[in-house]
């Protein structure tokens, strides 16, 4: 794991220096929060909208970092032969992937913290009922969605193509899984389709954790399974 702190620090700086990534992962979710909470009406069932929206948007941020930015970084590095140059150093591939994951998820973590802080300060967000459960759900969501992002980054030849594919995975999943529209306001058929996407268990689990509802072991297990399968395939097919 030699050099991991260096690579994480540099990669995080590089992400923050890219105005698009910084805007989409940090500012855009706050704009979404503002748009969603303008009406101030509680959700069907009586839950204050902010208590659903902040956890939902934390998965939105993870999705952007994991499904859009991470594969674009990896594919762009391959296209520009950045990966090839790294391969000619003693840096271990596990360390490099691990560092990329930590750097991109740090971006998502910063985005999530911003949402929570603004939620608490401006919108009267209720503190999470089960902090450990929320964190576990967030981390499993980050792992499972990143392993899909890693798979895209492993297969797609260029950074541009990775962005297009990443966005076309991210937006439909985001809308159908309840990361953008609360599940309570979605029709039954939309919810049924959304439940088939890998983002749905993440949304379900962070919301359960935040609200203090029982967390389904099946939901958590599905995220672990996605991480292992997609991550394993990604590492197998990865080209430098």
């Amino acid at each position: 794991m030699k050099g991991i702190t260096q690579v994480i620090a540099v990669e995080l700086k590089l992400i923050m220096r890219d105005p698009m990534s910084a805007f989409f992962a940090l500012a855009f979710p706050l704009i979404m929060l503002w748009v969603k909470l303008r009406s101030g009406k509680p959700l069907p069932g009586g839950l204050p909208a902010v208590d659903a929206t902040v956890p939902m948007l934390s998965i939105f941020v993870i999705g952007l970092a994991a499904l859009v930015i991470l594969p674009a970084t990896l594919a762009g590095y391959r296209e520009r032969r950045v990966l090839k140059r790294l391969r000619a150093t003693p840096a271990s591939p596990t360390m490099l992937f691990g560092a990329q994951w930590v750097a991109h998820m740090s971006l998502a973590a910063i985005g999530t913290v911003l949402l929570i802080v603004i939620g608490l300060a401006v919108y009267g967000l209720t503190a999470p009922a089960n902090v450990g459960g929320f964190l576990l759900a967030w981390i499993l969501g980050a792992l499972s969605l990143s392993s899909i992002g890693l798979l895209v980054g492993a297969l797609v030849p260029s950074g541009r193509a990775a962005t297009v594919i990443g966005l076309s995975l991210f937006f439909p999943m985001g809308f159908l899984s309840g990361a953008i529209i609360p599940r309570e306001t979605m029709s039954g058929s939309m919810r049924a389709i959304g439940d088939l996407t890998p983002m749905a268990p993440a949304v379900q689990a962070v919301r359960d954790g935040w609200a203090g509802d029982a967390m389904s072991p099946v939901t958590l297990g599905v995220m672990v399974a996605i991480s292992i399968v997609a991550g394993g395939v990604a590492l197998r097919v990865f080209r430098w």
Partner: protein
Amino acid sequence: MTAIEMDGLRKSYKAGKAVDGVSLRVERGEIFGIAGPNGAGKTTIVECASGLRRRDGGTLRVLGLDPQSDRRELLQRIGVQLQEAALPDAIKVGEALRMYASFYDKPADWRELMDEWGLTDKRRAGFASLSGGWKQRLFIALALVGNPDVVFLDELTTGLDPSARRTTWGLIREMRERGVTVVLVTHFMDEAEALCDRIAIVDQGRVVAEGSPRELITKGRSDSLEGAYFALTGRDMA
């Protein structure tokens, strides 16, 4: 002492044979040139020797290590500059050197290296903002940051203007003075003639001639290495 021993190296791609039985010896402390036309197999030879590609056949030892089975250990002791390799656009010169230094067990002092190669004034410059000459300077510094015994430089001066090329030649000679063995891949004969202690001329995956620039010029019955190159590869100026 021998830095690289290569015997009957073979490597094929789907398109055909890239390297077809190349045998070479590179001595410690010399600048060894691998010259030849585009597609001759020069880069493949270097990629096999630096552990980036698996060879199909032949024996290969770099610093006594097998680039395949002792890859990790070897990568600690060699430095590589790859053709058309790049760094992320937004990375700064200082960040790149510091990060690359962190990969090695016994790295050079990256600040000292930055100073020695005249990069200190550029330390806060982003990679994308550097001119070709400065990028090459940074690549040389990155190839040296692990304190290597052998450095592979693949077409280092392609795309540089004449004055930047001359400056780069000076930098490569400086490496040799520090005791580093340099393997230089080039298709510029003036460069090979000016820099190399010995040269192997490679064509269609085979070594067609090997020796010091003077020996090759004599062998090719010419007055310059370029003339000898055309005579030895059987290619004419057209």
